[in-house]
């Protein structure tokens, strides 16, 4: 009985769904290793059931008749001469699935395939159709509707927002009080609260440009980069201490400090990103900017046990590429391109070819320590470092031998000393030997090759990039056609640009800001907006694809993104443009009717209270106690170390072992890209409030500060506490209640202790954990 095309043209949707959900995964898991494109045992391929389900010996399936189908016979293990898979009988449930499928007539989807797409693995996507999605559309200024636009000096952002509010019949909330506004601006831009004096000065400043000057002053503060640098570091999964096998003598924080300084300098966003991707490949980049390469240089690394077979190691390497593509595409483009590693993207117009076109860039990018020096000096220093390490290792070995071998001890020690002396000479004789060493990358193509029968070796070809083969089903053991490096086709009208120079990172950066500019600008504008308003115009900040949320204000997003580009990709321009709006300066009090009509505040008719991130919360405690060490930059320090009063940004982040405080308070897992933080409220967090020595110490310091600044009058102390902590006057009932508490505690404790107990309570208040 012949069976050229088991795909009955009448295969119903539910049958096809059954095939896709149950049968195809099973065939891929169980059979395709031997019956696929690479090895097709017995001439049978089961990776493309859309084609012919037959091997050299004829058809393997008789639709409707499991008992007559060799495939079913084989998996049932009833015929000793025909048993598949050879490694052992499938679980009964899987056999039942195959039987069921054959009984249904062995339905498979209609054959599909785009010319030029990878055989059988990539059906290809239609970039032209994909481009109809809003996020892939070209960008242009969008004038707000109505007359509101013509008011001179009126913010275009407000005009857009108001149009939607009017349409919804919502009257926006009134302007917030000044003391609320200054606190909001401080936390948003620099991440620490204003002092009572700064609040007072702003409240009294009646000049029309008071707000603008405040915003300008904060944007000029070196703390701005600390606050926004941390937002960036979340996206790029920064850590101070990478995996043990990835640790070198390089210092991760050089990258962190580079980010902080670049943001402070308002380096245009396109430059900011390009340098991080390709400082080493771009012309004219000063050596200190090589620290920017930490974005890739600090990528997660997975253990490669070189005793295992090359295919196993290739899988580990492929996992690393996937993470890097996930981070780059998620953080910069708001796309989930990593989804296309094993199959074309299920929802977005991103094909496997697109994925491997990007993966080639990473296959030519090696993580290495880099001295922040010109290439020639760097080479010399790295060579010297290597020599010194070798000499030191030799010396250590000789000293060890000396300890065991008394007879030759003297001679061995002398030789060890000579080695060390030689090492010292090299150190002294090499200019810039102790120049800062950063986690970076260089262009070098990786090949995973056998090293004898029992081992695997990683080979790097320095200075050259490479195109890599597509991996069928994401399996490196099933290579498909080689895919030239290039940019995502959906973002590239016409032919996607090829990446040919070096690793292709420079080409990639250029494509992101040329072909991808519209999307890239939308994504970044949305991130900045989200940090200012607590809610994005798109609430899926790293997914602008078809499964992402549609923008609440598409015209506003486009208008702002277009003008962001016109403003030279200046982030500080963007902050000013957002913060000058009425919308940003609104209060959080809203009539019940408005809340009912727009509970999520999608229309931005009011400001909503936002939970402070752990950094801002801890920094606010330090600021209140008066102990905040506001030094910018430098080496990290354990957060749990006694007397660590530095900003939380400088707390040591171990990739795989987060500090308790960070772990409890929603700090993103630095093993991968974090699109946004999602605050949780848990009892274990509150145990920290109740019992950590950090809060205890700073409560005592705050109590001391109050005594010093407000004297002996209990009422004055309480009022001072409210100004310091919350930037507002204490209400009479608050003053009364607090004084009563201190009086009561003083019966069982010394006065300082009683005030400390009050300070602990005030530090625990919600008002300190939220910003209005």
């Amino acid at each position, binding site marked *: 009985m012949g069976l050229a095309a088991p795909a009955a043209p009448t295969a119903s949707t539910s049958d096809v769904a059954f095939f896709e959900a149950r049968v195809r995964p099973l065939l891929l898991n169980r059979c395709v290793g031997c019956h696929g494109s690479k090895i097709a045992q017995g001439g049978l391929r089961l990776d493309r059931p859309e084609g012919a389900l037959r091997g050299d010996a004829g058809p393997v399936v008789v639709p409707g008749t499991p008992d007559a189908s060799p495939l079913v016979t084989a998996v049932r293990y009833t015929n000793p001469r025909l048993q598949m898979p050879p490694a052992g009988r499938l679980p009964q449930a899987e056999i039942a699935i195959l039987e069921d499928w054959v009984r249904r007539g062995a339905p498979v989807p209609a054959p599909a395939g785009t010319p030029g797409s990878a055989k059988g693995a990539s059906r290809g996507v239609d970039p032209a159709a994909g481009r109809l999605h809003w996020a892939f559309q070209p960008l242009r200024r969008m004038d707000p509707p109505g007359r509101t636009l013509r008011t001179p000096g009126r913010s275009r952002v407000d005009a857009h927002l108001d149009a939607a509010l009017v349409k919804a019949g919502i009257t926006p909330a009134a302007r917030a009080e000044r003391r609320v506004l200054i606190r909001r601006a401080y936390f948003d831009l620099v991440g620490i609260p204003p002092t009572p004096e700064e609040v007072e000065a702003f409240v009294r400043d009646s000049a029309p440009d008071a707000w603008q000057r405040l915003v300008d002053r904060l944007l000029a503060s070196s703390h701005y980069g600390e606050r926004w640098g941390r937002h960036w570091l979340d996206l790029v999964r920064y850590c101070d201490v990478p995996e043990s096998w990835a640790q070198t003598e390089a210092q991760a924080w050089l990258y962190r400090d580079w980010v902080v300084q670049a943001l402070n300098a308002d380096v245009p966003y396109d430059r900011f990103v390009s340098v991080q991707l390709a400082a080493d490949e771009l012309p004219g980049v000063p050596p200190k900017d090589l620290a920017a390469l930490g974005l890739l240089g600090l990528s997660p690394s997975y253990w490669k046990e070189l005793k295992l077979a090359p295919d196993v190691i290739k899988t580990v390497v492929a996992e690393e590429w996937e993470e890097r593509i996930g981070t780059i595409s998620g953080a910069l483009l708001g796309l989930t391109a990593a989804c296309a590693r094993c199959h074309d993207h299920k929802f977005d117009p991103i094909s496997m070819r697109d994925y491997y076109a990007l993966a080639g860039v990473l296959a030519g990018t090696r993580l290495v320590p880099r001295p922040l020096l010109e290439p020639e000096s760097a080479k010399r220093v790295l060579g010297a470092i290597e020599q010194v390490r070798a000499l030191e290792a030799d010396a250590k070995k000789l000293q060890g031998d000396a300890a065991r071998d008394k007879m030759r001890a003297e001679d061995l020690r002398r030789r060890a000393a000579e080695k060390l002396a030689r090492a010292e000479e090299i150190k002294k004789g090499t200019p810039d030997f102790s120049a800062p060493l950063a986690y970076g990358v260089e262009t070098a193509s990786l090949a995973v090759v056998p090293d004898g029968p029992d081992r695997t070796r990683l080979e790097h070809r320095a200075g050259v990039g490479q195109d890599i083969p597509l991996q069928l089903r994401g399996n490196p053991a099933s290579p498909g056609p080689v895919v030239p490096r290039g940019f995502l086709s959906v973002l590239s009208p016409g032919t996607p640009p090829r990446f040919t120079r070096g690793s292709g990172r420079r080409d990639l950066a250029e494509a992101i800001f040329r072909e991808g500019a519209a999307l890239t600008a939308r994504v970044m504008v949305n991130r900045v907006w989200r940090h200012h308003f607590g809610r994005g115009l798109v609430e899926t900040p790293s997914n602008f694809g078809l499964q992402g949320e549609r923008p609440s204000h598409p015209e506003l997003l486009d208008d702002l993104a277009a003008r962001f580009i016109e403003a030279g990709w200046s982030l500080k321009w963007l902050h000013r443009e957002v913060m000058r709006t009425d919308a940003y300066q609104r209060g959080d009090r809203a009539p019940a009717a408005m809340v009912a009509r727009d509970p999520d505040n999608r229309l931005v008719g009011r400001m909503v209270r936002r939970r402070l991130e752990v950094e801002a919360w801890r920094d606010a405690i330090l600021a209140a106690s008066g102990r905040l060490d506001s030094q910018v930059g430098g080496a990290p320090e354990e957060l749990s170390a006694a007397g660590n009063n530095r900003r939380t940004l400088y707390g040591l982040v171990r990739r795989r072992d987060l500090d308790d405080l960070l*772990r409890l308070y929603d700090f993103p897992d630095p093993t991968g890209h974090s699109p946004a933080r999602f605050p949780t409220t848990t*009892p274990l967090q509150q145990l920290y409030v109740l*019992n950590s020595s950090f809060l205890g110490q700073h409560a005592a310091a705050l109590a001391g500060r109050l005594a010093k600044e407000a004297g002996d009058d209990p009422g004055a102390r309480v009022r001072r506490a409210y100004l310091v902590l919350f930037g507002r006057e204490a209400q009479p009932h608050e003053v009364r*209640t607090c004084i009563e*508490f201190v009086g009561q505690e003083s019966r*069982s*404790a010394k006065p300082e202790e009683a005030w400390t107990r009050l300070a602990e309570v005030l530090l625990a208040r919600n008002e300190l954990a939220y910003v209005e």
Partner: protein
Amino acid sequence: MKHAESPPSHDPRRGSPPAVTPAFSRRELLRRAGGGMGLLGMALAAPADASESARGPHFAPRVKRVIHLFMNGGPFQGDFFDPKPAINRYAGQRPAEVQLRTENPTGGLLAVPTPYRPRGRSGLEISDLLPHLGEFADDLCVLRSLYTDNPNHGPALFQMNNGTITPTRPSMGSWMLYGLGSENENLPGYVVLCPGRPVRFAELWTSSFLPGEFQGTYVNHSKLEPRQMIPFLNARASSPEAQRRQLDLLQELERPPDGSPSEPAFEARLKAMETAFRMQFAASNAFDLALEPAAIREEYGTGHFANGCLLARRLCERGVRFVQVYYGNGQPWDTHSNHNEATPKLALDIDRPMAALLRDLKRRGLLDDTLVVWGGEFGRTPTTEGSNGRDHNHFGFAMWLAGAGVRGGMAYGASDDFGFRAAVDRVHVHDLHATLLHLMGLDHERLTFRYAGRDFRLTDVSGNVVRPILA
């Protein structure tokens, strides 16, 4: 079943001010416990609502909580639960069937010195290395055909705990907590007991992209003082009364003066604060083995693993959803050399505590809705590494389940003649995970979380429930 620790009562009007102590322990509280009045303003029975974020089960669960006895390092299946006479018959030889590549080159078959015998009414064969556990043969469901994807500790640990070989996914305990919430808000819902550190660390109990409330709480129980086990459980306040008064003040200050309702987020944080306050007593109590009668301590025996098993029972009794007991620091089961010397010692160390745990759970009726899971991240080779060791083996290994929802006295699946490779009714770790979730009333294909553009699962895109073992 809901559990709540009542805080001890105390009459603050009695006697002189309490002595200033750096911390207050449970004993101290008991000592101070006096008149009939509870600590001011404190609800006696804590509400223990399930977490709001939890999904709830998809169908009726058979298992409410899981204790995972984790033999980090990887025990050899052939020593305990998978008798293979052919190993001894062909000892020293290297038949074609064992030409499999593991981490290190291995040589001929290494004989298994300790015999097996059929145990219980079922006649399930268990090694004489585990005589106490053997008494529970009729409760054990041995899986003899497990396999995993990678023969390295790191990836295999991740596969077993997080469902993939890379450290980027939520752990299985996080998925369970995410799916079902906690039964006792006064304790962490997911506790990892390890006397030291496994070779991979916090990523083995991470919530990863799931909300942080679902992460495991790591407890190093090498020191048995409860206050040293949980971070920040060690009270800072001079006394529980003083801390209670502080919380009362906090509540009063947080109450909107005009009587308007406060923000839900504010309320939630205050509620969590009260829970944290109670947790100090509940957790101190739960983790305090000194409260166990001497006879029970005796039954479990001594050592970190015995203590871990007893702690697991105490936590499970209080509704902790998932308790993992790591056998020890590092990877004690990783017997690359002197395998046959190390194994009896390890067996001696786990035998009594495992049996005591099962007996204790049974006695208390807890085994009716608790599942105990035993196993490592992979198995070991029947062939010799070096002269007397066994290498990692991801091709095949054995585990057992006991308790709610599974059939006892049975062995499922089979390895090849030498116990090297899972051969019949193979069970991938994904299948194990699917089965555990199924027992907890969770459909592994529907327990999903949207991240980076797709719905992630513990079982990735695989996993079949192993139905023949379900009771």
